């Protein structure tokens, strides 16, 4: 319960703690476990009112099969990929540059520009909704993945710049000075010295942005519609509308939609957490 390590406490408390952990976890994840359970139940269980008992039979293959084979979910998933990946690349690239400029150089407007990015990042994005939607319409990018990607890149640049700049700030400035003394051009300093050192930051930011964008719903609804460009978050709602009250399918669909960011988190956990805390904390 405390910064006193359990190892140093009494045996009984150690045992209590060890057994409390899984109980707490199950309680904490109960809603999720329920959904996972739903997703492997046959439809009959629901009409029979068997919501919370064990599945009468394992219907996981069937349910997930229908999600993948009979619905538009694969298409939405693909859209999500095509929205998320370019956004991650774009936002990271842009912010690596802005972060470099703001982290390394001293110039008059440095702090002002930096705060502009930070403030923009804090803005409740609803205020952007009407103009951005209009802008996207005028550019003919409404209901395109490109339109969504462009906006995401621009908006995420605020957060990413905050993150990158603080990271670069923490690099030893002597490295840049050493390179300058050696006659390395500024852009080469960026490319050969700073960028390689930013690898951890880039990894952290990439996973973080990946989850943010993957999970975005608001902008997906504002800037896209329909199967050709909507990501899976929006897709799941139409999927659900289609299978309203078919809890087993809705559950399976939700789980499918949730898996990529969850997988990303597990694979890149270290970077992910570094991203959350580093970006924000500094």
């Amino acid at each position, binding site marked *: 319960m405390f910064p006193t390590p359990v190892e140093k406490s009494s045996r009984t408390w150690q045992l209590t703690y060890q057994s409390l952990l899984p109980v707490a976890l199950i309680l904490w994840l109960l809603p999720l476990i329920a959904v996972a359970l739903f997703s492997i139940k046959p439809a009959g269980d629901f009409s029979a009112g068997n919501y919370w008992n064990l599945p009468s039979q394992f219907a996981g293959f069937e349910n997930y099969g229908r999600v993948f084979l009979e619905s538009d979910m694969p298409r939405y998933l693909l859209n999500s990929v095509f929205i998320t990946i370019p956004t991650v690349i774009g936002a990271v690239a842009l912010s690596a540059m802005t972060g470099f400029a703001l982290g390394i150089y001293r110039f008059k407007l440095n702090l002002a520009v930096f705060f502009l990015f930070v403030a923009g990042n804090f803005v409740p994005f609803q205020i952007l909704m009407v103009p951005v939607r209009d802008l996207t319409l005028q550019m003919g990018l409404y209901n395109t993945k490109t339109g969504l990607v462009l906006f995401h890149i621009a908006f995420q640049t605020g957060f990413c710049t905050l993150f990158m700049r603080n990271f670069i700030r923490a690099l*030893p400035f*002597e*490295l840049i*000075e*050493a*390179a*300058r*003394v*050696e*006659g*390395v*051009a500024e852009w*080469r300093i960026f490319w*050969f*010295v700073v960028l*390689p*050192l930013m*690898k951890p930051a880039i990894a952290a930011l990439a996973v973080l942005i990946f989850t943010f964008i993957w999970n975005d719903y608001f902008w997906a609804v504002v800037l896209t519609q329909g199967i050709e460009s909507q990501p899976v978050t929006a897709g799941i709602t139409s999927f659900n509308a289609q299978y309203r009250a078919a809890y087993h399918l809705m559950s399976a669909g939700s789980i499918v939609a949730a898996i990529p960011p969850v997988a990303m988190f597990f694979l890149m956990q270290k970077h992910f957490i570094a991203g959350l805390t580093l970006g924000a904390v500094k």
Partner: protein
Amino acid sequence: MSGVTLNKAIKKYGDVQVIHGIDLEIDHGEFCVFVGPSGCGKSTLLRMIAGLEDTTDGQINIGDRDVTTMDPAQRGVSMVFQTYALYPHMTVKQNMGFGLKMNGHPKSVIEEKVAEASRILKLDEYLSRKPAALSGGQRQRVSIGRAIVRGPEVFLFDEPLSNLDAELRVEMRVEIARLHREIGATMIYVTHDQVEAMTLADKIVVLRAGVVEQVGAPMDLYRDPDNKFVAGFIGSPAMNFVTATAQKTTVEIGATGTKLKHKLPSPYHGREITLGLRPEFITIDPKGDAFTVEISESLGGVSYVHLRADNGDKLIAEQRGDVRSNEGDRVGISFEPETVMYFDADSEARIRI
């Protein structure tokens, strides 16, 4: 010929002036050390020479080129940083060759120069390691190697050894001395370590608050400081300062009433002055009673005896061997009159006799 000449060099940060018009001449091949208290502008001055800080006013020449507004890269200087500033993602070899590569030198030339430098610094074994896999001393050697590779006319060091532990520091100090002998390039070295300054320098520049207090060979500064600041700064433990009064032909020490037969310039007659006396020149006289022993710190071969006179003046005397004074003892002191120095009590300037 690639000495370094500073001509009324001035540096301001905004409205704050940190370097107040420094004139300095460093000869080709000379080993010049900047010392001074923290914040006095040592690093700033070095970085101005390197071109990492703009020079607000005045002129800096390297050899016969005016480099005041030049890019760091074009000045023909290499710099070694306190924190080594090695590129962590490159191997030792790449670190050393990076500058050459970026300036478009052919591979074979780079190879050759890196090999040469690593031979000088005994780094051959480590060429393919990354900095993280090196010890502190090895890292510092690599960073020196990186400086050598470019074959600069002037080497700049900013407290290169202060991140090493005591033992390594001694070792690397000897290494740098050897390197200077071997390469013969001009070297400018910033430190706040007494020992480094005394042992490495051909010429020491003592800075205070952005002003040069004195320039000279180490032993010259020790023996013949221009003012109280330099006298107190060079030598360890620091010189003792006590009050004294100048008479026509004598100087009377306040603490003991002793009269020294020194004739100070007439303006001082009758005035209070500061008398400087190095701990190592004081002998404790158990028969005297002008001082109380406050504390006596014995380090084995040598003891430092802290003395306090009744007028409040304090002295430290260095005592050889294991004669130990006890706290509270009343003692006197003796010293050779010629080891004494006099300073103006206000301006702190040396009063030469």
